[in-house]
């Protein structure tokens, strides 16, 4: 079976994001880049499938500037077989443009299972994987916490508000991965050194500009006003209840 995972490199979730003086970009210094967490869950699912069926090949694809190679190397170190770098000068922001580029690369090779994180934690667009299904006319089940394969049939658990929908489908299929129960694995230093020697296929991407969307500005959200400590220990509880009931009438 051939699996591909589209991986995005994003600032680590603990990073403090600073807006540059032009109000349109973020400061690159001090950013530590990582694989998007939801993509890591997707990689983990693929690695588990490969443990069950050693005939599986896992390819990781990443679109972005030179630095995204680090993330591809990490994916190779934890068990991916091949990596493809779709090289651009900088991050492309328009989701529809990204979806079209990835869709055309995916179409060139026939994969049975195409995995995405449900969203990236930087732009929070929540749309690329589903769009690619539509563009390439492959079914997509989004927001899955887990899935199982049985020959050519996949059973996937899609999380919705307060319940789980269980979908069944034939391959090929696109899955967008929600955080599941799997624990992530981390590369050993030895595997990381070995992965650095592996070849990453590199494809230059001609960037398409979408004139219809323009970024006007970035700004910080309004800050919350300083709160107050109303007391210590259980003696403070009656004051809290009074505030919630009588002052702000919220309960």
């Amino acid at each position, binding site marked *: 079976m051939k699996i591909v995972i589209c991986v995005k490199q994003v600032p680590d979730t603990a990073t403090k994001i600073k807006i540059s003086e032009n109000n349109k970009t973020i400061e690159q210094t001090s950013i530590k880049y990582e694989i998007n967490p939801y993509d890591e869950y997707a990689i983990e699912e693929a690695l588990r499938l490969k443990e069950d069926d050693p005939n599986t090949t896992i390819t990781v694809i990443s679109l972005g500037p030179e630095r995204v190679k680090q993330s591809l190397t990490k994916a190779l170190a934890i068990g991916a077989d091949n990596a493809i770098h779709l090289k651009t000068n900088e991050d492309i922001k328009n989701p529809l443009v990204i*979806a079209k580029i990835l869709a055309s690369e995916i179409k060139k090779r026939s994969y049975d299972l195409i995995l995405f994180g449900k969203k990236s934690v930087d732009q*929070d667009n929540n749309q690329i994987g589903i769009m690619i299904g539509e563009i390439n006319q492959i079914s997509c089940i989004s927001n899955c916490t887990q899935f199982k394969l049985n020959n050519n049939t996949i059973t996937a658990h899609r999380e919705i508000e*307060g319940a789980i929908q269980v979908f069944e489908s034939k391959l090929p299929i696109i899955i967008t991965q929600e955080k599941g129960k799997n624990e992530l694995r981390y590369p050993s230093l030895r595997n990381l050194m070995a992965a650095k020697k592996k070849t990453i296929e590199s494809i230059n991407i001609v960037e398409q500009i979408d004139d219809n*969307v323009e970024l006007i500005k970035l700004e910080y*959200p309004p800050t919350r006003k300083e709160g*107050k400590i109303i007391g210590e220990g259980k003696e403070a509880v009656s004051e*809290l209840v009074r505030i919630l009931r009588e002052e702000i009438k919220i309960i």
Partner: protein
Amino acid sequence: MTGILSVLELKNNEVTNGSLEILTEGKKIATEKKQDNNAMIIGEINKKNIEKLKEYGIDSLFICSTGNTNVYSPEIYRDVILRIIKQTNPEIILFSGTSLGKDLAPRIAANIGYNLVTECIDISIVEDGYEIKRPIFAGKIIQTLRFSKTPIVVSLKSNSFAIEKIEANEISIKQIDVNISKDKKLPILREIIQPQKEVLDVSEASTIVSGGRGMKEPENFKLIEELAEILNAAVGASRAVVDAGWRPHSEQVGQTGKIVSPNLYIAFGISGAIQHQVGMINSKCIVAVNKDKNAPIFKFADYGIVGDLFEIIPELITKLKNK
């Protein structure tokens, strides 16, 4: 291309609040641009709900039944929406930011090659199009995008827009029977797994009671559950306790969980790491209980109590039971 098309949702036979949010926003745009304000719904909608919708300024409501619309099929829903788009030619298609909207909006946008902008918190009409604000980096930054070409597909972030009624008007009802024979190769919804006890979801609750590592043991979440029940609240959890397997991921609040904005968020034994903070900072009122007076959560909680939560929660339960 002109006018608005809002894609409404039903839950337990009621039109959802998210739908009323998009209707309110749709009406504002339609009024300002003097355009038609249309809406569609897939499924059976009763008279009571249609009555209710009269106060939201809808011109035409397309009620689409596909014979078996209670069973969600992304492809059938997509095809029905595409059909109404073809019929009405809207310049903005509005979805709510629910699991359904998140699944359908990208399908529609990619199918017809429109841009989709998700999780919007503000839409303004400008000379050459629309300016839309949305949070990025889990809300650490707000971006403003200008769309100079329509049509566009827009999904609104839940609980970010007001619901406003106006004087009731007659809606032109258009009943659409869609008979789509389903391709056998497409995904089929086999079953829906409901929790044993019906629980409120953090993304829908107006009050959330959350617990973190300070709860010490999974069994101690009984206290959180008891308090949540009294307050008619959802139970939330920090990433630490979800990763430890104490609580399900559906309860996780934060960057890799849910981003929530309830009226009241009460955090017990949660230190308030940035990844948790971004998930709940837009709550209207935040209460934090932590034994460490230097915990970061006290910097942004409206009201804090420093102390032992195993004394404080039972006391709170007692006080709340005594009305």
